[in-house]
């Protein structure tokens, strides 16, 4: 789900029934005047892993979503900066109480078989997403959207038809909510809310997404799909804005190995690939026009187990602070990762829309001051050379995580005499262990589901299903609740981060960046400013050499 900061604030500023009118001229490949386009308008990029599905209501991974945004089109899209622009809907209205949203659809949107795209297609898709029969791993997203009756539909207590969405007529879609969500329009850029073609799904069942069966409504159609190898999408001449689309063909190649992908990029087989850890400085020097690094909405951290099964030592806030203070984050970002990552003293990344990184005291100190303070705090807590602090820290198996854990444990050992034992686990075992609080200190990483601080800070609320450290603070719970129901969200988020800096339930390490190589002729149209990295092939273009 994708929140646009700008629309959100303007809607709040109006504070009345906002009639969002965006005109009919829509965003597509905005080629600046005078640009000479290349003859060859294709785009080939690397994906790490095969996507699990192309069914919009079922997709759960980034690689699948990237493809679905080309094949399908939802009510609204994002532009290169993450702002909302029209999709199938030309405009929308919210009621005064923000409990009812009405979307007005364009009359020229078509399915790839020529059928018109109607409000009924959205109603069908949304019911399908919530229907227990569909068993979508993303049905919780419908819950997050707070659509009327969604909880009862998910649990099977009510029929999917009870969901609070209806087609007033073919071109008008009305949605009823249970909480006033001012950012609801941002949520309909997410693939779960994309329309699907009922007749096709009923005809082919689970196999409807195969290239020979699929009917879609986006700027591209699926031409080829060889699982674990490649998928190809080509322009859809029936797309309502095909005239403004430039890229003819987009190919996703599955390449599991980072280094193999980089070699193939350098050999000219790919237009875009990720840069393996530690190689950014070298590549930036060698290929300054191709190696890029820009912020992502993700945080890397370690969480203390504060539940009853956690170690006694971690219940002492001084121990938690000492361990966090003694980590020299710049060593990890500048010497280990070397991809422009940001040292983290808060959980929420600074790139998050509407979030100002608060000046938490320990972030303002120099590392020498932090180290001195850490020694002091740990001594106060009763640990020292005679009574060294010992604990286990776990991470999921990966060379990168191992390096960071090693650096952290070395810093603790040298500065504080702490003995941390490293343990790695296979991914699923790690998740199971962490979720059952069977650990002392565990690695964590979190990427925002939408561009708003609550997608991070909800994690430290008592009831969060993702709060594996079982940290609980009633003040934070109250602040987060207040932010959702109309309080001053920004001020509340700042306060929550300040409380976390004092209590240190987690050790923030760094905020991620996206570090990639991209063909300089395409890079100009890549949305580097969209921190959620929602991109659409129809917005890209390749300039001539």
């Amino acid at each position, binding site marked *: 789900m994708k929140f646009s900061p700008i629309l959100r604030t303007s809607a709040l500023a109006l504070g009345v029934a906002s009639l969002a009118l965006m005109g009919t001229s829509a965003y597509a490949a905005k080629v600046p005047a005078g640009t000479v386009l290349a003859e060859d308008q294709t785009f080939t990029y690397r994906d790490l*892993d*095969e996507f*699990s*599905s*192309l*069914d919009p209501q*079922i997709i*759960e991974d980034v690689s699948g979503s990237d493809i679905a945004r080309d094949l399908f089109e939802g009510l609204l899209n994002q532009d290169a900066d993450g702002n909302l622009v029209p999709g199938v809907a030309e405009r929308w209205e919210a009621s005064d109480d923000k409990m009812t949203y009405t979307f007005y659809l364009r009359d020229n949107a078509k399915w790839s078989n020529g059928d018109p795209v109607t409000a009924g297609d959205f109603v069908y898709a949304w019911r399908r997403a919530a229907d*227990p*029969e569909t*068993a*979508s*791993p993303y*049905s*919780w997203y419908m*819950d997050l959207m707070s659509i009327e009756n969604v909880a009862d539909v*998910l*649990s*099977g207590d009510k029929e999917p038809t009870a969901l609070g969405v209806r087609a007033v007529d073919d071109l008008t879609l009305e949605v009823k909510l249970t909480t006033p969500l001012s950012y609801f329009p941002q949520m309909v850029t997410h693939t779960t809310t994309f329309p699907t073609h009922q007749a096709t799904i009923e005809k082919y069942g*689970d*196999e*409807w*997404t*195969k290239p020979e069966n699929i009917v879609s409504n986006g700027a591209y159609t699926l031409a080829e799909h*060889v*699982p*674990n*190898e*490649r998928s190809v999408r080509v322009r859809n001449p029936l797309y309502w804005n095909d005239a403004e689309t430039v890229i003819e063909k987009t190919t996703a*190649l*599955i*390449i*599991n*190995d980072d*280094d*193999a992908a980089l*070699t*193939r990029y*350098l*050999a000219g*087989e790919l237009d875009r690939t990720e840069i393996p850890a530690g190689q950014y400085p070298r590549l930036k020097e060698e290929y300054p026009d191709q190696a890029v690094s820009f912020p992502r909405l993700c945080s890397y951290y370690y969480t203390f187990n504060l539940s009853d099964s956690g170690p006694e030592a971690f219940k002492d806030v001084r121990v938690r602070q000492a361990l966090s203070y003694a980590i020299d984050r710049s060593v990890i970002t500048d010497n280990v990762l070397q991809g422009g990552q940001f040292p983290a003293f808060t959980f929420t990344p600074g790139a998050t829309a509407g979030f100002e990184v608060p000046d938490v005291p320990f972030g303002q100190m120099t590392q020498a001051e932090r180290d001195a303070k850490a020694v002091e705090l740990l001594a106060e807590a009763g640990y020292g050379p005679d009574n060294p602090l010992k604990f286990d820290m776990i991470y999921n198996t990966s060379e990168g995580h191992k390096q960071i854990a090693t650096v952290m444990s070395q810093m603790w050992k040298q500065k504080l005499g702490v003995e941390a034992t490293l343990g790695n686990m*296979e*991914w*699923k*075992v790690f*998740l*199971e*262990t962490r*979720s059952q609080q069977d650990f002392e200190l565990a690695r964590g*990483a979190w990427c925002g589901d939408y561009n708003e601080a609550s997608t991070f800070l909800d994690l430290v609320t008592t009831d969060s*299903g*993702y709060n594996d450290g079982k940290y609980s603070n009633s003040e934070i719970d109250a602040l987060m609740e207040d932010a959702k129901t109309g309080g001053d969200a920004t001020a509340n988020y700042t306060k929550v981060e300040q409380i976390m800096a004092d209590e240190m339930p987690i050790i923030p390490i760094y905020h991620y960046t996206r570090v990639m190589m991209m063909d300089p002729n395409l890079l100009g149209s890549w949305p580097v400013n969209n921190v959620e990295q929602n991109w659409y092939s129809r917005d890209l273009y390749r300039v001539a050499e």
Partner: protein
Amino acid sequence: MLNFIIRRLGIAIPTLLILVVFSFSLMHLAPGGPFTSERPLPPQVLANIEAKYGLDQPVYVQMGNYIWGIVTEFDFGPSFRFKDRTVNDVIAQGFPVTLTYGFWSFVVAVSVGVSLGAAAAIYHNSWLDYLAVGISIGAQVLPNFVMAPILVLTFTLWLGLLPGGGWNGGQWQYLVLPVIALSTSYMASIARITRSSMLEVLNSNFIRTAKAKGLSNKRIIVKHALKPTMLPVISYLGPAFVGMITGSVVIDMYFSTGGIGQMFVNSALSRDYSVMMGITILMGSLVIIFNMIVDILYAWIDPKIRL
């Protein structure tokens, strides 16, 4: 001979059954399941999904249903991870890829390995022998995860002759590098086995007799020496062939061929139970079948075995 084959088949079926029961149990014992994720699903959603895949039933019921589905309908179930594919689809897509590059690797490994080994033995202690031994030791110590990047750097990045990966329906350009990377170490082993076996045969009494009778060297090698030389080679070839056609994770990972080796590893990591079982059964069957073929070949070459 027929008795021998029937006896071997009689052992194969229970072996396969034990393999299924054992793998199925082990798999379910591993922590985490197909729907364990970093973002745990709400209980209601998880229950819906588990019900859809029958994971809400006791493991022995699941196992029973699974085996029944295979026996009655040859249905290995849907993939837990790939929502629009069944296990049969996954295997039908990946196995031919693996079979293709595995088969060619086998052909290359055997033809090059046997020729190299035989040449080394025939021209024992000559420069040819030293060269052959040098090549095979070199090839043996270079594991394919080192070979693969070197090949790609050389042929793709520097020379620009061959694509660095992909499959493209198995066009020959896409086959060359995976085949070289996969066959090299097998080729080296085959060469070494052939060489030592042939040396032994060439020094045995019946060859000396043949020489004494005045037969030509060519005739001695082709007619008399080659067959006994092949005995130890064949016992190596059975497992080697299965090893090659059941895929290599390294090859699939590095060359993005989309073969079955990598699917196997991924299915285990993502706890895609049905795909993992499907590939286990496929690989198990192949191992059993090829071991049987080797035994039969052996019995045919060496009558002592049949006794």
